[in-house]
């Protein structure tokens, strides 16, 4: 389509109609690919062409307006280009307004950041449109701060909305911020609360970044909200959105100035010392060699071989350790520190002595608080707990699982119990890895084992392939990974780890309600059960565990927290991998069929991407099982 220039007074409504019809039929890309650059060029300096363009888009009938506007916004390279092309269309046309301010921002979330930038920039460039910008910001903030939106909308949509909010903020001018400062503050407070409540770390981070930046905008002087979180590409991208407009730059680099200043001040002194010492050093020895024999040589040194590093001795007996750890207050803190550091190795070296006092030790360790500032205290305590649990599994497991459901423990302590159980179970089921667990446990071993470690899923898939490649399986305790096989020590104690945890989950206590507020702990519990299930492969209790787990999963399958649902799906995976196929099909057929239909549902309709992926994986596993059974001649 080419335009006829000239001073003709032509009506372009025909062109508008054509444009609209083409767009609605899905050919936006082709036509606008040619049209938009051409129009952009033409309208750059020519007002007449601008007006023609505006008339063009205004003339598109309402029923096709959405497609055209969407196309333009997507094609326009920058906000000012869009402004030239569309003019005040959003103000004049209701449909266009709806598309730009509502549909593209709140109902869709697939557009790129560049599109968002041009759209919101477009709204900010004209005073007529700025009111729309403010309204858009308010609506975005409402969504951002609504707790149901945070819980139920997919992470990608939440990221999109956060980006939009940040871009809007970057466009706002001081007087506008003044006028809506109060609302910004209220939304920010509510929104931060909902985001921090979420179990998914990505959402928490999103909330923190957005809240920090809102607070930065509304309190330009005075204390500003600051969170601690790990920077990653996403957060950096979000932060970069704030500084893009040259008209309103927020410079967050104040700390850098301080640091460079300090470094500058410190440097002149130290090199001075260094330089002069270099100068001094060659000078001094010369003088010394010239000097007379100094009477220093007359002084004969005494024997100093005893002068060694002072080491605080840790106790050598377990019972001594118990005494030191339970000892009163300001007693020898050095000894306390040395005991905490030495405890794990002592426990492992003296299994018989540990077994005598195992429950007492477990109790002490569970309640042990940091007295002095030791590096890695949390890890030391956890390793000691795991050592105690693996040395004397049954009584200590009984104790820990009962404490999990007791009153007056903090959430942190309950989650510690779960972590310890998982680590100990892993150690018991493959003792060969004992050396390796130490290394991988260097930082936060608990989180590595519990998902989202994709590595564990990958491992399962490898195991899965191995299952498929073997046509016949022997149930005689062959270890899954091809290493020397060891007796699975977890066999005799798996039940003690697993069943008590699953027993009381629906009984709320005054301070602990798994099905209510404490859904974070519930999520962790579910993941723990999945790992325990997985490690119980080839144990005697595995079928009973499988049945109990399946019932548990069924009861919780509609939980609103996506972290919990991911855990439930991992439980199903572990189940399918650990329980022998014959037993699954013999004892759990109906439940399995119900589960299969539920998995299909999750795969299609669940808002969370990870849940859908896990559901798909489970369905594949079920398929494999069926095929395998069909392959084996009965």
């Amino acid at each position, binding site marked *: 389509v080419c335009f006829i220039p000239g001073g003709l007074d032509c009506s372009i409504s025909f062109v508008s109609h054509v444009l609209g019809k083409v767009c609605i039929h899905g050919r936006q890309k082709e036509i606008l690919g040619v049209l938009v650059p051409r129009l952009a060029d033409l309208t750059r300096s020519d007002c007449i062409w601008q007006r023609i363009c505006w008339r063009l888009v205004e003339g598109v009938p309402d029923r096709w307006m959405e497609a055209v506007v969407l196309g333009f916004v997507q094609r326009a390279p920058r906000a000012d280009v869009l402004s030239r092309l569309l003019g005040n269309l959003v103000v004049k046309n209701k449909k266009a307004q709806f598309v730009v301010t509502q549909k593209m921002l709140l109902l869709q979330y697939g557009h790129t950041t560049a599109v968002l930038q041009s759209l919101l920039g477009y709204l900010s460039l004209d005073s007529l449109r700025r009111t729309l910008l403010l309204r858009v910001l308010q609506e975005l903030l409402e969504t951002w701060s609504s707790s149901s939106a945070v819980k139920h909308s997919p992470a990608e949509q939440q990221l999109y909305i956060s980006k939009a909010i940040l871009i809007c903020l970057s466009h706002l001018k001081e007087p506008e911020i003044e006028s809506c400062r109060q609302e910004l503050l209220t939304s920010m407070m509510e929104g931060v609360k909902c985001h921090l409540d979420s179990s998914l770390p990505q959402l928490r981070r999103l909330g923190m970044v957005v809240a920090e930046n809102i607070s930065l905008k509304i309190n330009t002087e005075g204390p500003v909200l600051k969170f601690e979180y790990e920077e990653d590409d996403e957060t950096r991208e979000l932060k970069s959105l704030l500084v893009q407009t040259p008209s309103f730059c927020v410079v967050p680099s104040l700390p850098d100035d301080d640091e460079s200043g300090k470094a500058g001040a410190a440097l002149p*002194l130290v090199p001075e010392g260094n330089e*002069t010492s270099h100068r001094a050093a060659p000078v001094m020895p010369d003088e010394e060699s010239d000097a007379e024999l100094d009477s*220093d040589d007359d*002084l*004969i040194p005494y*024997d100093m071989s*005893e*002068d*060694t590093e002072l080491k605080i001795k840790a106790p050598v007996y377990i019972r001594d350790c118990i005494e030191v750890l339970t000892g009163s207050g300001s007693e020898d803190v050095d000894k306390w520190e040395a005991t905490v550091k030495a405890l794990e190795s002592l426990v492992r070296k003296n299994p018989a002595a540990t077994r005598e006092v195992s429950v007492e030790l477990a109790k002490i360790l569970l309640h042990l608080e940091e007295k002095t500032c030791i590096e890695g205290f949390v890890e030391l305590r956890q390793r000691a707990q795991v050592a105690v649990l693996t040395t004397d599994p049954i009584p200590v497991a009984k104790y820990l699982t009962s404490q999990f459901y007791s009153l007056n423990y903090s959430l942190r302590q309950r989650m510690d119990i779960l972590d310890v159980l998982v680590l100990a179970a892993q150690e018991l089921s493959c003792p060969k890895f004992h050396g390796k667990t130490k290394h991988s446990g260097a930082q936060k071993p608990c989180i590595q084992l519990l998902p989202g470690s994709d590595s564990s899923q990958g491992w399962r898939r490898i195991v899965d392939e191995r299952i498929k490649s073997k046509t016949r399986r022997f149930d005689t305790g062959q270890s899954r990974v091809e290493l020397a096989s060891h007796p699975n020590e977890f066999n005799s104690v798996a039940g003690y780890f697993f069943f008590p945890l699953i027993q009381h989950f629906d009984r709320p206590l005054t301070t602990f309600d798994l099905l209510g507020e404490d859904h974070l702990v519930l999520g962790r519990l579910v993941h723990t059960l999945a790992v325990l299930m997985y490690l119980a492969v080839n144990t005697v209790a595995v079928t009973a565990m499988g049945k109990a787990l399946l019932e548990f999963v069924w009861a919780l399958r509609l939980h609103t927290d996506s972290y919990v649902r991911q855990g439930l799906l991992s439980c199903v995976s572990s189940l399918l991998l650990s329980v022998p196929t014959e037993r699954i099909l013999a004892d759990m057929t109906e439940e399995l069929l119900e589960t299969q239909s539920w998995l299909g549902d999750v795969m299609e309709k669940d808002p969370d991407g990870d849940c859908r992926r896990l559901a798909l994986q489970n369905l594949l596993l079920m398929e494999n099982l069926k095929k395998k059974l069909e392959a084996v001649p009965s």
Partner: protein
Amino acid sequence: MALPPPDPQFVLRGTSAAVHTLHFSCGDPEPDIPLLFSGSENGFIHVWNLKTHRVDTALDGHGRKSVYCVETMGGKDRLLSQGRDQRICLWDLAEGRTAVTDSVFTEHVGFCRCSLLKVAQGRWLMAMAARSLEEVQILELPSKTSVCTLKPEVGAKLGMPMCLKLWQLSCGSQPVLLAGYEDGSVVLWNVSMGKALSQLICHQEPVMSLDFDSEKAKGISGSSEKVLSIWSLNEQQNLQVYKTHELVNAGISDITIRPDKKILATAGWDHRIRIFGWKKLKPLAVLDYHTATVHCVSFSDHSNPRDRLLAAGSKDQRISVWSIYVQT
């Protein structure tokens, strides 16, 4: 074959509290008794008779707050003590009296020991940490008039002064102050003009103690880390690092150079006293007697070299007295 280190010549017990400071007064000829003054954590100053090894007098002047500095002013009859009650007390001990004749309210809540320098007959200069965080005040005693206040420049961030040493090159010359600070630097101050001549960063951790040899213009400082730092003063009054010595265990509470400048002693947090030769900092001995951190070491001022003693006070409430390297 090196000999094993010697045992203490005797041990003084009876303070019933950790010993924080020691000072000998043995210069008087017979029949005067050589004395050792010790300040303890329970606020008492004990006057030990070095012949009988018993406490002659116990002075209570700091309201049971720890005494962390004790000095004599020209003889054993006039004593100066500094305590955690924020006071410096001047005592008159002549003829058996035990009276506090005067006191200075320092308002200093830290642990910085004051430093005395005799400038003329009956006149002393005393450097002490003052109320304000980074300042050092110089007072003239006994008049208690302020000579000057040494303030580091704004933004220097030296922290609290940790240890002080006033000295002058010879009688009548300008008094100078060496101060070790919390940030690990040592600053040389000109007292009359009240300004800093030189600053040197000796340690990464606070300077716990320092001592200076004015004849050789060399000083040594110890800190809470493992390094002893030896620095020198050149003609332009600039401090330069001369040498460092690494110790086996971290933490030095006190350093003192013997008056004949041949050896020096350090009091360590690892319960050990270390003796070094001063010329080249050659390690000479490690005296391992105490069972808790050693807070202070002090050399005696006996006129007869063979009688010289070294005393160390520790948290284990004992004072060990040694006779070491007295043959030179």
